[in-house]
């Protein structure tokens, strides 16, 4: 039943954002497993992992559409609508990048990463794992901030954002180093191309997480 008095209250967009972020968090473990599997050369489960990420991405898209579609015109939010949508876009792109990484790996039939680069790749993956996981924490802490407006809570959110930035910086440096070494190695060009692009897509996960953090920073600004 529709009661105008109640219809004034629209479900918090943070509910949707959190749901979206939780789905992304679910991908963390799968992503990690998939990359390890790819590195190990003897990989059978990779396709399963990739399909799982595809499925989650599909779910997340539905949540994203629901958030965008259920804010009628004339809705007053605690932040600007464009900030919310921009945030959502960046958060969604984190998942898109995870998916793209696994897709990119799957395009090449020959699995594995040359031993020389395995350690750096592992470090790069480690640097982006935390940002993927942190998103849901950031959203839920952000929601708490919008409930109690406490200065302490603002600091909690800002710390998470700073952490995301730090990881992005780390990932950037690793990506740089990897690419430099790859181009100066004597591997065949196809392998190099595949690995360079792989490093770039993995790095972009941290980029988008950082962008999401920046948008959250703008939302909680005084």
């Amino acid at each position: 039943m529709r009661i105008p008095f109640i219809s004034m209250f629209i479900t918090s967009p943070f509910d949707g954002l959190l749901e979206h972020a939780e789905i992304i968090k679910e991908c963390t473990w799968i992503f990690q497993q998939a990359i390890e599997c790819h590195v190990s050369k003897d990989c059978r489960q990779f396709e399963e992992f990739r399909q799982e990420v595809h499925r989650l991405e599909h779910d997340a898209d539905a949540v994203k559409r629901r958030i965008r579609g259920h804010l009628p015109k004339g809705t007053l939010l605690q932040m600007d609508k464009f900030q919310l949508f921009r945030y959502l876009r960046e958060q969604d792109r984190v998942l898109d990048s995870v998916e793209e990484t696994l897709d990119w790996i799957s395009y090449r039939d020959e699995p594995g990463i040359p031993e020389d680069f395995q350690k750096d790749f592992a470090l790069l993956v480690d640097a982006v794992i935390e940002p993927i996981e942190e998103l849901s924490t950031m959203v839920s802490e952000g929601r708490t901030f919008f409930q109690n407006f406490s200065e302490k809570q603002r600091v909690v959110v800002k710390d998470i954002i700073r952490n995301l930035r730090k990881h992005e910086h780390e990932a950037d440096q690793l990506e740089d180093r990897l690419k430099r070494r790859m181009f100066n190695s004597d591997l065949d060009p196809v392998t190099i191309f595949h690995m360079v692009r792989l490093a770039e897509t993995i790095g972009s996960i941290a980029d988008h997480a950082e962008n999401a953090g920046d948008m959250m920073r703008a939302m909680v600004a005084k």
Partner: protein
Amino acid sequence: MTSEYSVLIIGYIFGFYMAWNIGANDVANSMASAVGAKAITIRQALFIAGILNVVGAVFIGSHVTDTIRKGIVSTDVLTDPHLALIGALSALLAAALWVSFATWRSLPVSTTHSIVGAMIGFGIMAGGFSVINWGILGAVVLSWIISPVFSLALGFLIFKIIVRLILTRGDPFDRALSLSPWFVGATAFVMVLSFLFKTPLGKTLSLGTPSALLLALLISAALGVAGMKLLKRIIRPKGPHGEEAIFKRIQIATACYVALAQGANDVANAIGPLAVIYFLVKTGGIGAQVPVPTFLLLFGGVGIACGIGMAGHRVMETIGTKITTLTNTRGFSVEFAAATTVLVASKLGLPVSTTHAAVGGVMGVGLARGLAAVNFRIIFQIIIYWVLTVPAAAITSVIIFKILEYFL
């Protein structure tokens, strides 16, 4: 004479029906923010609203009522007892039907405005357009704008103050506790004043404005300090939302007060016309005011309570599940804004409804960025029904008047 008694019986039925509708329609508006903020459960809300409406109606409700609600129509139309009888019946039924329709369609309308509209319809039929007091009608129209706007401003201000002085501070719980005398006191101040100015019992004390203000100030100061002492004793947990727990207690008090005041004021909407019929049948003539026997007040109070009990649950459940982002500080801001608006507006002689004020309060807190998402477009829909209330009740009243005139 037998036909007159059958009219009286019909009057009882219509009166009960109207009271039932008042309960069904108004309970959502008075209890919505308390239930939405989880200050009280649905069951508690229904219980509190039911009991206090009866208590308010019987003990605070007026034992004398204006024959014509708010004096919207000149009392000249009442000179012919037969016409007055038909008029009171048709006004009662027309208002009840409109409120019924609104309850069915889940629209928050004002029951006072409904009865005022229905009286206009009867007045036009009985004495033409000249008997209508256009000044009062103007006040009704003015109240459509003033009460939400005033309440919006107040809700905005209160919530901003709470954010600035309590929420953003290092230890919001301690801040809330040390400032609680001010919030409790301000709430008590509004409550005492509305009790003195608005309720019929308060009016019989007939205090002048300065002495009423002084009395309210003294009582609220005492209650504020006592409230803090009590809050200190009952609220132990310093959990993450200690400050909300403090406002939760204040909110319960305001919810109770609103239910009590509602019973005292709104019972006249159903019982006023019924008292006219009762008096006409018993004595054969009436003046500008009629006495209301206590059993009629009880009858109206029980009718309201029945409406709350039977239809309230459906409404409350929707509120409980739909309004999830309302916390106690927000709920308090909305309620305080609404109660103060109703007080100030009725002191100014504007016939306001709690519904209109509550909607304004929600928008104010929303504008202060206190609510996750507020749909402002809904307000147009709500306003349309506020504006429609008077003409719709008037036209229904005219039609019923014509039909009754034919039969009686």
